[in-house]
Each structure stands twice: as C-alpha cells, then as structure tokens.
C-alpha cells in the first residue's frame, strides 16, 4: 500500500489521476474502519488532510456558501449552524464528539452511503457538489444527481470532491433521524425538510430508506400547492399527514439488521409529518415576530 500526501489541490488531483484506485481519506471515520477490519486493501490511501484550503469555507459571489470537503462536522455545527441549520442538525447526530472532530461532509459524499446523515439536508436545500479532475477541471453536480446507487456516486475514478455549495437558509429547516439510541447510530431512516418561503415551496430529503438518498418530489409538490404560504395559517393535521404519506411513498426501503422495510416506510411518514410541523411552527412564529 502507498500513502500519498499531497500538499495542494493540484497535487491531489494529479495523484488521483495517476492512481485512480487510491482511496481518498479525510477524517478516516469510514475508510479506516474498512482497513482495520480487512474489508478493503486499496493500493493507496490519498490523505487529503494536508490540502489546506479544503478545510476552508467562504461566502461565494452568488451568495451561496462554498464549504470545503475537509470542514469537519464539529466546525460545521460551530461556524455554520446559523446559516445551514438543517445540515447542522444532521451533523449533531453523527457519531460522537470524537467522530465529529474528524468526520466531514466531503467524506460522507465520497462514501455515498444511503445512510449518510449529510445527504437528506443537502437534497432539501438544493445543494450542489463541486468535483474536479486533473484532466477535465471542475464541474458542478446537483445533489439530486450525485447519488447513483448503494455507495456509488457520480464521481469519476479520477475525480475528487472539492466542496459543496448550499444557499444559506431562507426559512426553517429540520432534520430527524431514527436510531436505537441518541448517539453513535447509523440511521435506520432519516428525513430533512427545508422551507423556501421566497419560492413558496419545501425541499425534502429521504435518508436510509432507498438505494440512494432521494427527494420526495410528490410531497414537495403537495407542500408547494397546499400549504398556506401567504396567510401562514396553522398546519392542518390532515395536510401534514398527507405530506407524510407522500414522503413515505418516495421511499423504497429494504429489510436489514437495522429495521424492516415496513417500519422504515412508516417511520419516514412520521418523521416527515413531524419535521414539517416543526418547520411550519417556526415559519408562523417568524411572521408573528415581524408583525
């Protein structure tokens, strides 16, 4: 095995191009588990923790946040929790403090596990993933097109994740996750909702309940059409329940050690209904505070 230590982004891309089988490693919270357990013996590890600007984030010219692939969950919570509240909630449910000090959204994207906690909020906020290769330069992939299968993404073998781009929240955002305890769990299933009041619509993301993380498009269309965006009337329980049913219909879960397909489908309906209720409650409160 080789251990590649690029010091710059250009060096990292060159290393990946030279050895596409090299496995990129940031916090190591997925990759090192596989190596420790002899599940994976890649020809090389490509350590990205020395590529300094990967650990930076900035407000881009278009107003969106561009968050480097090396920004840890702990920093995301502390530094961006106000602007990316849904993603920060998801980050708080990742592992333990030790894991959040190392793990990154970039690593979550690279692993592309359907159970990754970052994915539902990235989908709900309409994030884009910035990837690059030495040969073809940079391209942007919408989160909706990034996930291609169980642990498969749209990344080409010579590409690396550089950053994700997400708009700062313009309305309430929530994430909820089902697990056996309140820490250290891989999601049985999860759900994210982001209200976009300016566009009078809600974004969604369903996690760990299909081969890939995915949006619940029918639930989004229903919310855009049926919620009282202008009047901000209290959320009708029937409407919230219907939103949940449509979210569950978007799921395509399996039976596995963490839960059954039937349980997951039911739980997605509950999580979607609850997170919408929390978000709508905040949306109404915002209006009251402004009045």
């Amino acid at each position, binding site marked *: 095995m080789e251990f590649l230590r690029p010091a710059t982004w250009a060096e990292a891309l060159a290393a990946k191009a030279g050895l596409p089988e090299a496995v990129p490693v940031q916090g190591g919270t997925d990759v090192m588990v596989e*190596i*420790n357990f002899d599940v994976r013996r890649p020809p090389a590890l490509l350590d990205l923790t020395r590529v300094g600007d990967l650990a930076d984030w900035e407000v881009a010219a278009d107003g969106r946040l561009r968050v480097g692939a090396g920004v840890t969950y702990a920093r995301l919570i502390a530094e961006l929790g106000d602007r990316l509240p849904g993603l920060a909630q998801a980050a708080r449910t990742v592992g333990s*403090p030790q894991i959040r000090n190392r793990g990154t959204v970039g690593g979550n994207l690279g692993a592309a596990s359907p159970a990754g906690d970052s994915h539902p909020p990235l989908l709900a906020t309409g994030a884009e993933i910035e990837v690059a290769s030495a040969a073809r330069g940079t391209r942007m992939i919408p989160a909706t097109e990034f996930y291609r299968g169980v642990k498969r993404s749209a990344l080409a073998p010579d590409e690396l994740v550089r950053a994700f781009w997400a708009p700062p929240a313009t309305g309430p955002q929530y994430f909820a996750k089902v697990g056996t305890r309140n820490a250290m769990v891989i999601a049985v299933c999860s759900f994210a909702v982001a209200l976009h009041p300016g566009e009078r619509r809600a974004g969604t993301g369903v996690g760990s309940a299909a081969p890939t993380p995915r949006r619940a498009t029918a639930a989004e269309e229903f919310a855009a059409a049926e919620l009282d965006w202008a009047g901000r009337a209290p959320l009708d329980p029937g409407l919230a329940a219907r939103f949940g049913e449509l979210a569950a219909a978007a799921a395509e879960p399996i039976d596995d050690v963490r839960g059954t397909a039937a349980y997951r489908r039911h739980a997605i309906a509950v999580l979607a209904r609850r997170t919408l209720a929390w978000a709508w409650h905040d949306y109404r409160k915002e209006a009251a505070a402004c009045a």
Partner: protein
Amino acid sequence: MRVNLTVNGRPEEVDGVWEGESLLYVLRERVGLPGAKNACEQGECGSCTVYLDGLPVCACLVAAGQAEGRQVRTVEGLAGGDRLDPVQEAFVECGAVQCGFCTPGLVVQAHDLIERVGAPSDEEIREALAGNLCRCTGYEKIMDAVRLAAARKAGTA
C-alpha cells in the same frame, strides 16, 4: 514508511510503519504508550481517545501517516510528573474505575470537556461522553467524577 510526530511533547521518529496502520497502533506498539486502548477499531467505543492537535479523536480511525508532523497527547501526558491530573484524581476518588479498560478514553474525553466548558451540565457531560462505552460502572460514578473534577477546577469543591 517513516512517521514523525510529537507525542506528549516529545518528538518521535517511527520507522517501519505500514501505510494502512492506525495512529493507535503506532502509539501502543511502536512508541510504547499502551494507555489508549484498542477495542472496537471502528470509532464506537472511545477507548482509544487521544488529543490530535488539541482535539479529542479516536486514534484507531486516524491513519498513522495523517499524524505526520502533528501533536498527539495521550492519557499518559495528562499528569504532571507524579501528580495525577484532577480528572484522574476524581475518577479514583469517585470509584469511576472498575475494570479500567475504558478509563483512559473517558479521562481524555472528560479532560477536554472540562477544558472547554468550565461547569458542564449533566446533559453536556452525557453528550460529551456519548462516544465512550463503559460496561462496568453504569456511568453514574463516571458522572460523579466529572462533576467533581469540574467543581474542583472551578474552585467550588
């Protein structure tokens, strides 16, 4: 490969490191510091918690090569000479140690909590220790120890 790192203030030059090796293995088997424990090897138990550049991490999930040029502080580096760190003292006094296997990880993690948050609430203690498993104590004595260490640091006990 060779890895250069600083452990508990001392520069270490370690040769013959396998490229897939963890920082935990380097510390225990090559540097001779067995305080951090090897248990789950998947970041679930917290027994291998050490400071890496000032942040507590699971040493089993840090690739050895990632520690090149970094500062590591292990449980062996908390005490000043013969005097235990107040967190270690509190663990002894409160009976927070039974078999002792999880103790080094818990001590480092509790040490970090008390450094960052002077007087942590019970919720903050539980959250901070959520990634450290203990199968002996039932955690109540550990909670007592962290409360005592924090109170001593704040000068209220």
